[in-house]
């Protein structure tokens, strides 16, 4: 496998980023999904990884979260390879919300969020005042205080996802990785979730790395966008530089027009496709002209 001949436009030439992948190759058994990839996660920013199905974006995130052992290269956290550091020590610095976490039957919201404190506890020091405080703060940040006594199985999808984020927050890390945190949510809850993460980043300075499916929401919420295809980075940088018609064509194989999002002024991808609306579905020439 040859190295990806791409100018990453790294924002971190000095190598000061706390979390970075250094020529990492990742995969399952004998197949390699991510090839020799290097990326630096800007500290205190929201980084979003996008790409088509099977491009290796989740695999990259799993590698960063030490869920996968690299086949080559390394993921460095504060200069140390994550998969060689005791996993508990990593858990004190790096939070993770995986794609399908399992809520144990009958577990209450406080109990679940409290489990996020595990890396800070030991067999002798099981639960303390600071744990109560951390849980209360995580509940407040995610607006789940009123759900505290509820059983997680009985919550709606959006509430449940907020509770999981609260658990990751209770872990009290400066870095948070999220694998498709909006997957099972409707569009209103997707926006709510991303607003929450953006707030968190702004207020607490938490570095966030997430994989998202929706390119337009990614463009709106990312400081730093990483576009992947076939296990390699195709483009990287601010949404304005990454989300172009050429990159969308290369990454997704989709013809599109990129216009400014009328709400956020970030790039908005409008797919072309072969059908241009059913008869009678047009909003009329007036609005069309406005765009």
């Amino acid at each position, binding site marked *: 496998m040859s190295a990806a001949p791409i100018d990453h436009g790294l924002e971190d030439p000095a190598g000061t980023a706390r979390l970075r992948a250094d020529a990492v190759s990742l995969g399952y058994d004998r197949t390699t999904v991510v090839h020799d990839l290097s990326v630096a996660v800007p500290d205190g920013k929201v980084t979003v990884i996008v790409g088509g199905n099977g491009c290796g974006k989740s695999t990259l995130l799993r590698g960063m*979260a030490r869920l996968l052992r690299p086949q080559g290269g390394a993921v460095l956290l504060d200069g140390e390879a994550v998969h060689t550091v005791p996993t508990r020590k990593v858990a004190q610095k790096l939070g993770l919300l995986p794609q399908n976490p399992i809520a144990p039957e*009958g577990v209450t919201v*406080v109990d679940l969020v409290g489990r996020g404190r595990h890396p800070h506890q030991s067999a002798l020091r*099981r639960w303390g005042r600071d744990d109560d405080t951390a849980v209360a703060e995580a509940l407040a940040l995610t607006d789940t*205080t009123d759900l505290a006594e509820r059983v997680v199985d009985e919550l709606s999808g959006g509430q449940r996802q907020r509770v999981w984020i609260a658990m990751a927050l209770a872990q009290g890390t400066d870095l948070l990785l999220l694998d498709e945190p909006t997957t099972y949510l409707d569009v209103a809850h997707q926006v709510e979730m991303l607003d929450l993460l953006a707030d968190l980043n702004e207020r607490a300075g938490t570095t966030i790395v997430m994989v998202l499916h929706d390119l337009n929401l990614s463009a709106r919420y990312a400081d730093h966008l990483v576009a992947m295809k076939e296990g390699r980075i195709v483009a990287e940088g601010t949404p304005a530089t990454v989300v172009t018609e050429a990159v969308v064509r290369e990454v997704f194989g989709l013809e599109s027009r990129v216009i400014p999002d009328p709400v956020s*002024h970030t790039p908005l991808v409008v797919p072309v496709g072969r059908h241009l609306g059913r008869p009678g579905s047009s909003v009329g020439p007036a609005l069309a002209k406005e765009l």
Partner: protein
Amino acid sequence: MTAVEERPASVLVRTPPDVDRVRRARRGPRRRHALVIAGLAAVTFAALAVNLLLGDYTYTFPDAVRILAGVGIDRPTAEFILLQQKLPRALVALCVGLCFGAGGAVFQTVLRNPLASPDIVGISVGASAAAVFALLALGLRGNVVAVAAAVGAIGTALLVRWVAGGIGSYRLVLVGVGISAAMISVVHYLFTRAAVFDAQLALRWLTGSVSGAGWPEVRILLAVLAVLLPVLWWSGRALRITELGEDAATGLGVTSRRAELLMFVAVLLVAAGVAGAGPVSFLAFLAGPIARGLNAGRTSIAGAALVGATLLLGADYVGQYLIGDVNVPAGVLTGAVGAPFLLWLMARGASGRSPR
């Protein structure tokens, strides 16, 4: 980038952190769990008392206390029966019940599957096959057979783990069921070649029974529990994290190696139980879900251990005294209760939600 003119207000209405509410909310489930444990401990003690005081030889409570305290009541036969027969038998039932209850619940919790109990993934049948092999094919008798059963349990567990290639739940259950079937055919083959008398001896290693248990068994079981229960308590904290799924657990600093260690402790508990009383059918399978049911659906390993003890003490009492003139092995009764329970669990699973 241009600034947004009017930023939409966040959907979230934030309240300030409320530490008191967190404390209060944490207290509810903990109090319930404490009550469940206290209640189960009382029931277990009551079952133990019933096994000692009632039956073919009955004792008044003061008499029993005096005999146990070593004071004596001038009736040597009564003293002998209580101290040398009833007491060790009841204590073996207690210890074996604790072993199976705790071990089974750890299996079900780590594998996140109520079907993944040691009975169903072949560990009990493995113990049976090893014991029957020792008895019938090697002609061994006595304690060696119990050791063979324990070795069989551990060996089968390792085999299932190795073939399944990990402790990912579904594969492990399927491999376990397959290996169970193979072990059953080993048992059947051995039986076809056995003399009637030997077959009678071997039967105990198929269903499980505490009849004929004496002080040596009690001592060994107590020693094993004295080591394994603290280990389980020590590592039990990680159990609450492994429940969240492998990825989330790793994120919180608990590797799958930790889960395997917990499973190994559970296998040792089950092996000790099997050595003490044979593979008491479905005991490990029943205890966990019953304890969960009492604890509002939440996992309770301690609760499961006490449920296991109560069930075995109860089954032994019923089998000895309440069913006609015959002595029915405890394992036959737990099996009779366990099979419909298994069907109920499957039917409940099919309907999706658990009843509350």
